[in-house]
């Protein structure tokens, strides 16, 4: 694995950063989340979300984009579109895409925006197109839009046999998205503890604060590199390790960041929740950390593990 970005990757990320620069500011109103519809449209039109379909590019380039976009306080469906859709019989441009692995009656992330739904089962994936009339938006506190199918039995699904491929790409996307959220969440708290004074000194000068933020930084950096490694190798073991590591550490990571943001960090007027809520939602995906860890063990050491 080469840790340096290629010339093409640098160019892509530079162009993406110039777009994202206009979407760094959190919404003014205190809201649990804000879907970046305008950002979504720009990313779609400029072709970033189709990068893995382009000659010479692949899942690693897609993961780089997922991680970068996830740093925005605005939420946009990127992971499924860039990493999962290219391996499925979904027409290019039919997005956003909602990924789901539970009962069809349950709340589904991104369903209110989705034009396609991918349901992952043990031995296959099922794909359906969605229109707005089939979805009821539901209230959520987890920084993503969630919706419920009004009449699940009315959907017509197409079968896709390689469930493992879908699961693998989903895991990579989830880890990359978590990594991006961690970068911005940590940055917002570092700024707070640098400028906030208590006991006559910046909060960040206290060792109790420094040590745990150093650990948070270690988690964020590890999540990021594991996600990129999984995208680069595109293997089941690496994908499960990246997703499992991220999920296993999200709880401690978010608690520490909220702790050092103080009471301000508990309000919707402070931006931390735009990333911490998303992280919490991601922590429960695909069965959670222990499920990914068992999958990684099985992939590396076989069923005997």
């Amino acid at each position, binding site marked *: 694995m080469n840790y340096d970005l290629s010339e093409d990757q640098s160019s892509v990320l530079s162009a993406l950063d110039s777009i994202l620069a206009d979407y760094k500011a959190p919404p003014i109103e205190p809201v649990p989340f804000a879907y970046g519809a305008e950002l979504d449209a720009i990313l779609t039109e400029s072709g970033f979300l189709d990068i893995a379909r382009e000659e010479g590019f692949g899942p690693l380039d897609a993961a780089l984009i997922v991680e970068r976009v996830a740093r925005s306080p605005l939420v946009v469906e990127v992971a499924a579109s860039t990493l999962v859709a290219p391996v499925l019989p979904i027409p290019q441009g039919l997005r956003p895409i909602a990924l789901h692995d*539970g009962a069809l009656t349950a*709340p589904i992330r991104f369903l209110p925006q989705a034009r396609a739904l991918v349901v992952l089962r043990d031995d296959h994936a099922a794909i359906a197109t969605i229109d707005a009339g089939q979805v009821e938006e539901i209230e959520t506190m987890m920084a993503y839009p*969630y919706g419920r199918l009004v009449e699940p039995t009315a959907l017509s699904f197409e079968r896709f046999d390689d469930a493992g491929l879908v699961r693998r790409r989903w895991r990579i996307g989830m880890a990359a998205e978590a990594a991006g959220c961690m970068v911005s969440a940590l940055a917002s708290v570092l700024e707070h503890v640098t400028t906030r004074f208590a*006991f006559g000194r910046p909060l960040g000068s206290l060792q*109790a604060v420094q040590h745990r933020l150093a650990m948070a930084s270690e988690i964020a950096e590890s999540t990021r590199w594991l996600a990129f490694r999984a995208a680069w190798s595109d293997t089941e073991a690496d994908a499960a390790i990246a997703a499992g590591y991220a999920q296993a550490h999200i709880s401690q990571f978010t*608690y520490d960041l909220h702790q050092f943001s103080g*009471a301000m960090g508990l309000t919707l007027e402070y931006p931390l929740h735009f990333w911490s809520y998303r992280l919490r939602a991601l922590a429960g995906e695909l069965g959670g950390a222990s499920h990914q860890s068992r999958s990684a063990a099985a992939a590396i050491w076989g069923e005997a593990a």
Partner: protein
Amino acid sequence: MSETPAQFRRRARSWLETNIPSDKAPLDGIAARDYALAWQRRQFEGGWAGLAWPKKAGGCGLSILQQIIWYEEYARAGAPRTLDPLFVALNHAGPTIIACGSADQQAYHLPRILAGMVVWCQGFSEPNAGSDLAGLKMRGRIEGNELVVEGQKIWSSYADMAVWQELLIRTDPEAKISAALSWVICPMDAPGITVRPILTMAGAYKYCEVFYDNVRIPLANVVGGLNNGWATAMSTLSFERGTASLGLLIALTLRIEEMLADCPSSRPLMKARLAQLRAEAAAVRATAYRVALDNEHGVPDASGSIVRLSFSELEQRATAAAVDLYGLDGAKVIGGHGLGHEYLDAFSETIAGGTSEIQRNIIGERLLGLPKGPR
């Protein structure tokens, strides 16, 4: 012949079974206030308010053991959560006025608190002074027999519905902090007070900012003596750290039991995690009982910080486990009264009433006798 603990338990259980509200407590607003006041009134009229408060303070004068039994039965019956709009009145203001208030203050305020007539809020934190109470800047200057107060407080839970506030202000600008503050009973309807509720990440309007523009408060409202507010405030925080969380702790223990019962055998790792939480809950509960019994007749000592620290962190771990057990879309998790709300609300537990870091400092310095380090 006095009532045995077992008889007391039976009587408490019987009363709770027939009297707890059938509807859930609203999360915020006037509806939350009215619900909490009505429930407190019902307990008062039934003879179950202020169980461990002294009789001369209007309480029942019962032992701390009986108080513990009440909390156990209260949690077992599924009675409303005690972290409600009356928490400050019953667990901060009341005990502080009992410990430090004048006879007039006790005679006026304690009956109203116990009878469920008033909501109190806390006014300690300021925008630039949270954990660092010594950094308080808000001034109160003396004019005749009044204090004239100007400034801002923040994180004042339920200030939007409170009648009174326990307000900590700097009344001597020159003195060291231990002789600079006063703990004052502030009427929230005084001219010059503006309250702005803040939406929390758990989805409720609980915290408020309070702005004071030349608010006049009678000097007679000072509790514990002018410029002695640091000591009075430490009493208040000792109550919060010591005994106030007993009811919440017992309810949390039962919640973990319920989670263990709900956990399917196909999830052995989750079962092990819950069993570990159950063990931790038993340990915290034993510590909390010990601290409560040791401090039966006075202001809780610094060991209350052990209870506060271990309870708050346990609650965060337990609510996180609940979300993992039932799933983000689980029936017990979603909705305003779901565990998802409690999970998000629990983030505040290790910040309010002194952060976990402050509690660790107290334990290290005051219980273990370690040298005081730089803050």
